[in-house]
């Protein structure tokens, strides 16, 4: 059943070239609906919520010591749900503004294939391969349909991620090599090896660098702002919405088993410090940016830093909060990017100084914008709050002072988010806004309502997500 999640995107991304031109629209709709219903079917017949829900193993070649081992449990269920939801939404957005060329859809489907693979694969080599595979479509998307001087930016992004993933590969190789004979890359026995403290430290460092580049954590974040701004809107949605989660998910699945012993505690401490510096650094920069996408880039850099710090505390509320916030941040950031895209389409510019007073022109866009902005600033009864609270709780329990420093993020977030909202929606109408067409088509309303529902429903009932991963996180942490 899990193999369907991996095969269908691949088949679709190849098949779409065969279909005649006018059928692409319907094929994409069918594909997005199909992948959602397939996911629904998978979730429906999850019988027992304790042990991993499904495990499937497909051996490709006997000499390769690794095989396609797919595992779905509480921790991987949430990113998978997010991916299906966001990919379907992004496809609908593309259909909404009549994007006709097939290569975009096939690239997104290839991306979908890679992402599902990353979240499902429990085999170190498989994980690495899917990690790389996701790089290629996003590279194409950003390079072909990007804007500004996109070539060097996309190449830098590719190189950053490539270096990170190679470091991860070296760690996995080392783990494989010190296994007794007959070992393989599957998660079960790649980690139950005994190695010296320094070796463990280096392996953990290698995997961490691979993940840190993706998240990004402070110090490895140089590619992020430029890539988000120069990518097309659905490119930045894929990047910010789902690809960040690959790094975070990697922390759950691949980084935490390695952490044991004194040296790793120091590494854990340094990582948390890095994350928190990133949180405050990103938030402070976002205060004086003028390009909308750049603000969102730094805002997601700051939010994700907090999530990473929460995960690194290895506490129950940190992990649960991290998973919930992963799902929620994905939804909010994609919603905000969609609004930024609508503003850019309707009013022609993303620059804060040129916009203003959209609320008087386009009431509904302002309302949707307000709800999403509040969701991002983690206001209670919006989806941001439970996750942020649990993360802050885990941070406070870990170390009171750093947590205070991390806590200031809710203040900075309020500052730059409300500044953004004020400059875009309130104030006098700028001439750009007056000249732009202020109407939302029905499909745009439909998509934005989904995001708004996501914000409110998860805000009032966060248990929907927390319940899914409760048992897995519980027995995972008690083992650790």
């Amino acid at each position: 059943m899990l193999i369907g999640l991996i095969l269908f995107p691949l088949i679709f991304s190849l098949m779409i070239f065969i279909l005649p031109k006018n059928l692409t629209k319907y094929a994409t709709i069918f594909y997005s609906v199909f992948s959602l219903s397939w996911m629904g079917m998978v979730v429906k017949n999850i019988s027992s919520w304790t042990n991993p829900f499904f495990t499937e193993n497909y051996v490709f070649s006997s000499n390769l010591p690794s095989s396609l081992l797919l595992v779905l449990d509480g921790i991987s269920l949430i990113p998978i749900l997010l991916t299906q939801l966001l990919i379907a939404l992004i496809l609908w957005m593309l259909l909404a503004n009549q994007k006709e060329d097939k290569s975009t859809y096939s690239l997104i489907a290839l991306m979908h294939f890679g992402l599902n693979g990353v979240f499902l694969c429990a085999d170190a080599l498989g994980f690495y391969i899917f990690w790389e595979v996701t790089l290629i479509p996003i590279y194409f998307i950003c390079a072909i349909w990007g804007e500004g001087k996109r070539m060097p930016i996309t190449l830098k992004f590719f190189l950053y991620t490539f270096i990170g993933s190679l470091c991860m590969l070296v760690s996995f190789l080392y783990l494989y090599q010190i296994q007794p004979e007959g070992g393989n890359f599957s998660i079960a026995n790649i980690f139950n090896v005994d190695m010296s403290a320094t070796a463990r430290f280096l392996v953990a460092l290698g995997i961490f660098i691979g993940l840190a580049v993706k998240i990004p954590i402070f110090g490895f974040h140089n590619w992020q702002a430029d890539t988000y701004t120069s990518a097309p809107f659905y490119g930045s949605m894929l990047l910010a919405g789902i690809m960040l989660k690959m790094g975070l998910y990697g922390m759950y699945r691949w980084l935490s088993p390695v952490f044991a012993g004194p040296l790793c505690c120091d590494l854990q401490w340094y990582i948390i410090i890095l994350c928190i510096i990133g949180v405050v650094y990103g938030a402070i920069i976002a205060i004086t940016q003028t390009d909308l996408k750049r603000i969102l880039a730094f805002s997601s850099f700051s939010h994700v830093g907090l999530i990473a710090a929460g995960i690194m505390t290895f506490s129950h509320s940190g992990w649960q909060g991290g998973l919930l916030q992963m799902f929620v941040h994905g939804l909010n950031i994609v919603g905000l990017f969609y609004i930024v895209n609508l503003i850019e389409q309707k009013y022609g510019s993303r620059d804060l100084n040129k916009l203003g007073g959209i609320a008087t022109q386009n009431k509904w866009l302002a309302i949707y914008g307000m709800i999403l902005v509040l969701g991002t600033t983690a206001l209670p009864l919006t989806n941001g709050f439970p996750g942020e609270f649990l993360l802050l709780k885990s941070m406070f329990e870990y170390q009171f002072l750093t947590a205070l420093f991390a806590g200031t993020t809710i203040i900075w977030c309020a500052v730059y988010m409300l500044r953004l909202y004020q400059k875009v929606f309130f104030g006098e109408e700028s001439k750009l806004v007056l000249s732009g067409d202020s109407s939302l088509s029905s499909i745009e309303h439909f998509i934005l309502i989904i995001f708004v529902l996501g914000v409110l429903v998860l805000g009032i009932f966060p248990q929907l997500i927390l319940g899914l991963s409760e048992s897995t996180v519980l027995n995972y942490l008690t083992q650790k």
Partner: protein
Amino acid sequence: MSVIIVILLTAILVLFLHIFEGRQWVNPLAILGLSLSFIILCLENNSLWGDYSSMIYMTQFAKVFTGTAIIFTILVFFINQSRLKLEEDTNNGDKLGLVLFSLCGAILLFTFTNITMLFLGIEILSIPLYVIASSSKHDLHSNEAGLKYFLMGSFATSIILFGMALIFGATNSLDIMTISEYFSQAEISKMAALGAFFVGIGFFFKVAAIPFHFWTPDVYEGTPSIWATYFATVVKIASFGAFFRLYILLGNVDNSPLYKVLVLIIILTVVVGTLTALVQENAKRMIAYSSIVNSGFLLMFFLNPSSDILSYFGLFILGYGLATIGIFSAIVYLESIGNSNGFEGFDGLGRSQPLFSLGVAICLLSLAGIPLTVGFLGKFYLLMSLSFDQWWMILLVIASSIISIVYYFRIFNGMYFSNKKASAIVAPEVVSPYLNFVVGFCALSLIIIGLFPDFYLNIFQ
């Protein structure tokens, strides 16, 4: 043995047919002959026989490498076929004959059990290539390439001979087995060590490791692109095949006379090769340096040779060969539409020839080591074979494959993302079917073997 006979017969037939007005049948006949020899190679697995009073011994390893060499030559002939369509080539038959002769030399190199056969193999491999290198008479580049290859080639051969003489002096026998027994004892005489050293140096030249790589960029740039493909693939696979068997025989790993030299040369090759490849302006020279870097990686397999390393070694070479053939066919196509082989030739190829450039893109991705391709598997196995007490060697592989992204993706970006308008691209003639076939074959096999490596690796057992 009959493989060599069939190839020789086809060579002679091709030479004569060329004289008797059968010009247009020459190329297909050569391809036919080669495929016949490939079939014979596959069928005759009866006895792993020895011949020439056991101076040639067709082991399983040799069989696979011969098969790979034959396939590469067939692909080169297909590329040649595509060029024949465009302009009449007077002495095409001679070139094919010469190439087939050098192929026999290559097969000798895989199967030698005696030093004489080794020497003969090297010479039969390289002498025809001196002629082919300077095959386009009136182009000074090709002449220069031929001369350079000749001078440095013969210089290297004399060094190898000097080494062989010293080994012969020390071990008093030409047979590989006795020599390897002599070398496997703890203490070997100074002369034998010197002899092994010189043979090693000669082979480092043939394999184009850095201090001895000077001929490769100029020769690849100078010779006509079709035969440069032959140089980059078959010559490299032959010299590596011979060197690998020789290195294993010449001594146990740690105190073998060549170990320290090998480590230094690997480091030099990978570092200098990658850095110079980064700044190349000419596509052919860039591929020459990429081949140098790849030979550096292949040399890494020598660091701790073991039985199953052979199959990974074969896989890496297969990946490298197919990818290089793919890229060279793109260069041949660009030359055929009158394009100097700088990088700007590739701009906009993605739009004008989508399928063709997709194939070339896959070859590039394989060379760069992106997953789901043979190149990645080759690099992965290489990393697996390197033990972690040489951790800096692993860092070397990592760093160089990172930087290789930059120069491989220069072509890649040119093809797909150059904002050159489609109209500005030189009248995109239709790519000849043969080139399409070659690139298609290379790309498909790169992906298929990349996904299901058992298909190739099990042949070695």
